[in-house]
């Protein structure tokens, strides 16, 4: 009975979403205040209904109600409770429900934080979000109802995919989804502004904190996914340029470009066209990501058994969103978007270079990801684009981005002099190259152009950011002790860029100096790798709550001294008859030691992978810095004050633009 209530709540939520999308937008067009005022209550009621549905599905998992087909397919009475809860979003139907729940949470957040916006504008924003929600609720109810019953109910469930029985899965999808869907807010802002014909600085200022917070979640989500793949797949890799990884990375690149372009639009009223396009682009790419993951059109390590009709539905949704918003853009842009002008040496220029390169990088990733699909659609054969393509194209495009960061953070708005920048940065420019070279010479036997380049660029970013911070403090006649007094949007920006540099260091060193060996080993055998000797002590049988495991104990020595003991398991989950590898990892600031069991071979031997991964943690540390930076920037007082005095701000901006 309670399950049917969940289904019913979803249907009601769809009705609410339709009300939320039709009345406010129509009301805004016709000046009907009553219709516009429906936006907020409809959005809040919709949220409550979806939350009820979500809670009911979760309840069905916790009490093992296997008469629900989705629960029966993805849970088991032996599954620990925490995984039963996370199993709610472990497969297609539930993750779509999570999608709509998060969308409604973002919408409710907009209803609370938009009280200072004009009624017309906020009605349009909430209306557009209602439209998106309508599309997804339809998809959910028509093709993937999580509350479908299954008669007769099976005695026990089919268990959750063992790969997903992990802490990473509990948090990775929700955080990634919050990031994906957050772009719907920025998208709705852009569409509302196009509809109303007011793309002013106030619009850009409004969009900025939302974009930054969204980007923070997306950064964390991608980093978590990378970390999860690293320890859970047992391949010792942290990024595979897999279509599904690319699907989350493309909105990130577009979002990063958007953040920088928005800054220029807000401060100087320039690049409005570009900013609006990026906002549309970021959200469309999020939808594309959903389509790629959920349609099963791609051969990917992430591909799960899927249903083609769902893919078609999402593709239609994608077509409507991209087609509709671009048509609106083409119709409204010529009249609403009047850009200012920019000077060659100015912060605007650096921001523009940055966002162009990021967008081009995004386009190359997009090309490599969907090219196989296009070729196949035209019947030209089946193919895939190999990993080396992405590395060969993407990495060189990030070099100018990294170089520009240092200048961009310091250059003045409007116009700056090349001489001034040169005076401040000449030592940092040469110093970072020399220092990068010295560090590589000291740390490693072999020097490679790529490593020196990567490390030098990172040092350049950190050095130039520190110079910008010092100059900023000097301006206020303060020393480093007054660091906390800097405006938080500025410190946030610095922190995020330093995080980017840390990630580059991690990527550079891990890709160039990692080593690995795949070996056939029996108990007592020893393997040498990167100055460590790995001795396989034993392989024992273990019993888990819902699996059996063979556990290898490996002791690692360096110069005959014990460094660590690593345990790696090969698990067998009988319900799904599925094997799973648990890697054994000893993590450290400068290196990870990593083992994972392969397959049992004859005579008690096993195939074993052993990896040495220097600086791999830095990749994720950097991401944490970037996320913290984004949080700091989004919490800046300016946005809150600006909101409170929106009226004055708009007038000031108007004056500034005239001047």
């Amino acid at each position, binding site marked *: 009975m309670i399950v049917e209530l969940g289904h019913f709540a979803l249907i009601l939520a769809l009705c609410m979403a339709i009300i939320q999308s039709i009345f406010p937008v129509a009301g805004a067009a016709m000046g009907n205040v009553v219709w516009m005022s429906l936006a907020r209550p409809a959005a809040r009621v919709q949220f409550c209904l979806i939350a009820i549905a979500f809670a009911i599905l979760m309840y069905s998992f916790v009490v093992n109600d296997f008469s629900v087909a989705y629960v029966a397919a993805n849970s088991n009475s032996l599954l620990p409770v925490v995984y039963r809860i996370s199993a709610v979003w472990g497969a297609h139907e539930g993750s779509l429900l999570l999608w709509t729940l998060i969308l409604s949470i973002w919408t409710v957040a907009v209803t609370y934080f938009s009280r200072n916006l004009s009624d017309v504008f906020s009605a349009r924003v909430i209306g557009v979000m209602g439209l998106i929600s309508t599309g997804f609720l339809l998809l959910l109810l028509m093709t993937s109802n999580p509350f479908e019953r299954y008669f007769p109910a099976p005695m026990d469930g089919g268990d959750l995919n063992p790969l997903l029985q992990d802490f990473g899965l509990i948090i990775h999808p929700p955080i990634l989804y919050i990031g994906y869907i957050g772009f719907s807010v920025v998208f709705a802002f852009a569409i509302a502004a196009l509809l109303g014909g007011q793309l002013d600085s106030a619009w850009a200022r409004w969009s900025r904190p939302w974009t930054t917070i969204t980007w923070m979640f997306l950064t964390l989500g991608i980093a978590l996914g990378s970390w999860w793949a690293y320890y859970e797949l047992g391949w010792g890799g942290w990024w595979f340029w897999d279509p599904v990884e690319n699907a989350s990375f493309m909105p990130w690149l577009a979002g990063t470009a958007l953040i920088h372009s928005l800054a220029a639009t807000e401060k100087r009223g*320039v690049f409005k066209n570009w900013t609006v396009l990026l906002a549309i682009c970021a959200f469309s790419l999020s939808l594309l990501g959903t389509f790629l993951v959920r349609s099963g059109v791609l051969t990917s390590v992430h*591909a799960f058994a899927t249903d083609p009709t769902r893919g078609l539905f999402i593709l239609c949704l994608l077509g409507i969103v991209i087609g509709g918003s671009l048509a609106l853009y083409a119709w409204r842009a010529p009249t609403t978007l009047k850009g200012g002008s920019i000077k060659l040496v100015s912060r605007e220029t650096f921001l523009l270079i940055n966002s162009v390169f990021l*967008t*081009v990088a995004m386009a*190359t990733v997009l090309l490599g990801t969907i090219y196989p699909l296009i070729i196949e659609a035209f019947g030209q054969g*089946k193919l*895939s684009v190999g990993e080396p393509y992405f590395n060969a194209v993407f990495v060189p495009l990030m070099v100018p981005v990294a170089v520009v960061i240092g200048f961009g953070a310091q250059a003045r708005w409007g116009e700056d002099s090349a001489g001034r920048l040169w005076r401040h940065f000449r030592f940092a420019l040469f110093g970072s190259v020399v220092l990068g070279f010295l560090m590589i010479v000291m740390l490693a036997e072999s020097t490679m152009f790529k490593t020196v380049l990567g490390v030098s660029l990172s040092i350049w970013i950190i050095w130039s950011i520190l110079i910008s911070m010092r100059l900023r403090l000097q301006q206020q006649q303060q020393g480093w002790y007054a660091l906390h007094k800097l405006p938080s949007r500025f410190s946030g920006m610095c922190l995020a860029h330093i995080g980017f540099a840390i990630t580059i260091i991690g990527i550079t060193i891990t890709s160039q100096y990692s080593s690995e060996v795949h070996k056939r080993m029996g108990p007592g055998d020893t393997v040498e790798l990167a100055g460590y000797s790995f001795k396989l002590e034993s392989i024992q049988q273990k019993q888990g709550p819902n699996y059996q495991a063979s556990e290898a104990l490996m002791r690692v020595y360096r110069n005959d001294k014990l460094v660590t003991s690593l345990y790696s398991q090969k698990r067998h989950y009988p319900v799904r008859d599925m094997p799973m*590898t648990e890697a054994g990892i000893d993590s450290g600031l400068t290196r990870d030691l990593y083992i994972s069991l392969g*397959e049992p071979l004859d005579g008690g031997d096993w195939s074993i992978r052993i990896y040495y991964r220097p600086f791999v943690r830095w990749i994720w540390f950097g991401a944490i810095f970037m996320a913290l930076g984004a949080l700091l920037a989004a919490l800046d007082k300016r946005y809150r004050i600006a909101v409170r005095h929106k009226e004055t701000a708009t007038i000031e901006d108007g004056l500034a633009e005239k001047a």
Partner: protein
Amino acid sequence: MFVMNPKRRKVLFTIIFIVMGMGLATALALKAFQENLLYFYSPMQIKNGEAPTNRAFRIGGLVVDGSVQRDQQSLVVSFDLTDTLYNVTVNYDGILPDLFSEGQGIVANGRLDEDGIFKATQVLAKHDENYMPPEVAQALADAGAQIPTDHLKAQK
């Protein structure tokens, strides 16, 4: 050029940046693209001599029951892949993915040697035991084979 009116100058610079970026990306992309496109060939196409011998490609099919042979000293393994009409022998030196088993649909990257044996550099794993790579499903359909019923069920 520097006396151009500001609006025109802005447009000019924007265009220059975009053209520069696009040009660089296109050059890099095309070069890398040509080197890294992996075409897919089914066992039937390989037997018909359609597959190239001078470059890497992808192969897919079902692992033939009882065909998996392991070397006793190393990690070298060989197995046959079938589209139910034709078989191709695959050699691989490395650790097979967790979900590799006889009867399972798999995809491998590598090259064809002179003896018609496929030297795999990578054997791809899936996250889901019911998952059938789309290429493999197509190869089986081309060979006129019935896709095993449990895979059909999983597609529902």
